[in-house]
């Protein structure tokens, strides 16, 4: 079955389909490759990687909530050197694009990672300026327009690959941040990262997470994410990668219609390891059934009515 109708182009990188996995939910693919065919994904977006190993937060790091979950992993990662040596060669065995999520505590941390990736065969860099669970860096760069534009322009100076700025929904107006990223030279934006939330154990009378707060994800956030993706797609002219609670093809199609050029599947991987692949197949069927011969025909279509 030909799926050429699913091809999309994000900042000059041609993906065989518009489906990737959300950073942090899929590691670097090594664990999920036993459960699903990662060559069927348009791209794999890897877990955030910093210049040096990060230990992350104390446990409990997750808590389930109604139709979703909270996490405060705190970006545990082995650092860029191990990532380049171990994870990139692993992913290169598969027929999929590689989007590397980059995190840092300071501007120079981000730049160090980006510089080390200069000659590494990865396709896109996603810059995490929106993690709500780390004390330094992360979201600190993502909540003011001036700092979003500044860090984007600084990273852009050193990056060989196109950069995607990953935006936080924990702001008054996400379109302001998206426009700032665009002004700073971003090649694309991705949204939304998780919404800051909380859960309390009423019997232990304490916070469910050691970090007290965590990022809310899963189907419960989808309407919020969809609204923000729509607003952002209307506000900028760089590609928007949409995510937030996508668990099936119908969800993904909503995001495409809202203006996302690509979608990411996150929390759904935990309860359906084949979610990404199912969504690719479902989008293809939808296009056939509804008389479209190119997925690009439906991107942003809802906004044009």
């Amino acid at each position: 079955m030909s799926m050429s109708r699913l091809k999309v182009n994000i900042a000059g990188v041609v993906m065989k389909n518009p489906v990737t996995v959300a950073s942090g939910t899929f590691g670097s693919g090594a664990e999920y490759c036993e459960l699903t065919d990662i060559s069927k994904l348009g791209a794999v977006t890897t877990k955030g990687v910093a210049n040096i190993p990060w230990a992350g937060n104390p446990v409990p790091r997750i808590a389930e909530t109604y139709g979703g979950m909270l996490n405060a992993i705190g970006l545990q990662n082995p650092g860029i050197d191990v990532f380049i040596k171990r994870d990139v060669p692993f992913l290169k065995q598969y027929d999929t694009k590689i989007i590397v999520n980059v995190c840092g505590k300071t501007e120079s941390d981000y730049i160090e990672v980006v510089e080390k990736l200069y000659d590494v065969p990865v396709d896109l860099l996603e810059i995490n300026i929106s993690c709500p669970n780390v004390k330094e860096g992360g979201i600190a760069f993502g909540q003011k327009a001036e700092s979003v534009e500044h860090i984007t322009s600084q990273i852009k100076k050193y990056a060989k690959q196109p950069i995607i700025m990953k935006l936080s929904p924990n702001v008054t107006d996400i379109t302001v941040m998206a426009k700032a990223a665009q002004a700073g030279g971003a090649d694309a934006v991705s949204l939304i990262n998780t919404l800051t939330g909380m859960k309390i154990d009423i019997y232990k009378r304490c916070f469910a997470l050691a970090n007290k707060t965590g990022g809310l994800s899963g189907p419960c956030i989808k309407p919020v994410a969809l609204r923000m993706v729509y607003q952002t797609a209307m506000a900028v002219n760089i590609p928007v990668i949409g995510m937030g609670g996508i668990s099936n093809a119908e969800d993904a199609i909503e995001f495409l219609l809202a203006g996302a050029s690509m979608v990411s599947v996150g929390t759904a991987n935990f309860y359906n390891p084949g979610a990404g692949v199912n969504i690719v197949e479902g989008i293809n069927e939808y296009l056939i059934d509804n008389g479209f011969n190119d997925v690009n025909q439906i991107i942003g279509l809802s906004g044009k009515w």
Partner: protein
Amino acid sequence: MLKSSGYITFHGNLQKNVQSQSVEGNIYELWIEVPDIAKKAMPGQFVSIFLNDKSRLLPRPISICSVSSDKTSLRLVYRVTGKGSGTEFLSTMPRGAKIDLLGPAGNGFPLDSTDTVLIGGGIGIPPLLEIMKRLKGRRRAVLGYKGGSPFLKDEFEVYGRVYTASDDGSIGVKGTVMDAVLKNEIDLNHATVMACGPLPMLRALKEYCTLYDIKCYVSLEERMACSIGACLACVCNTVEKDSHSCVNNARVCKDGPVFPAEEVVL
């Protein structure tokens, strides 16, 4: 670290799902016919059960209690953790229901010990039954209960001597499993200890085994999301740098749940 075996997701057939016969009202037992997992399952490994209920997304990791003699079915003995919990939902699933699960996950207990003392506390008792069954040589068990009825005790007794303790003194020694070890003067020298239970119990046991230079394995529990080592939710502190992130935080689901006690910081 022990080597992890591959896991797959499977559709199982729920054969039986009943409240335990014991007085422990919140302990349930289920049998799932799932030959592909059952034939590979090793003692101490776990399965993750997908509830297929969209309000409760995450799979429930539950240790394997035993495998049927024909290796077609898994038996899980689990505690319903509260009102509205996923385990409560699981306990209401009827016989014949199709159930999705992933497994066998994680690393189990070593099988080469010839003199073993298994120490289980509360809902940490069921994960020790299959290893009690499969080990060769001398096997003893020390089981700690809250009170009420000593669930699974008679099944452990088929394979070796069983000592008990309970918080209220209604079963065996009044106190903890450590009290049972001391009061019964159980000689742990030359034995290998394998334990599963609450963290304070594992801490006390690790301290004791370190003091007397006794080999000890502990099975740990932590909240999990993916249960395959990708999400890094269920970590435990380790003495050495872990192989995945190089930060002294091993993954309970993938690198454990069974660890040599000297490798983890409890």
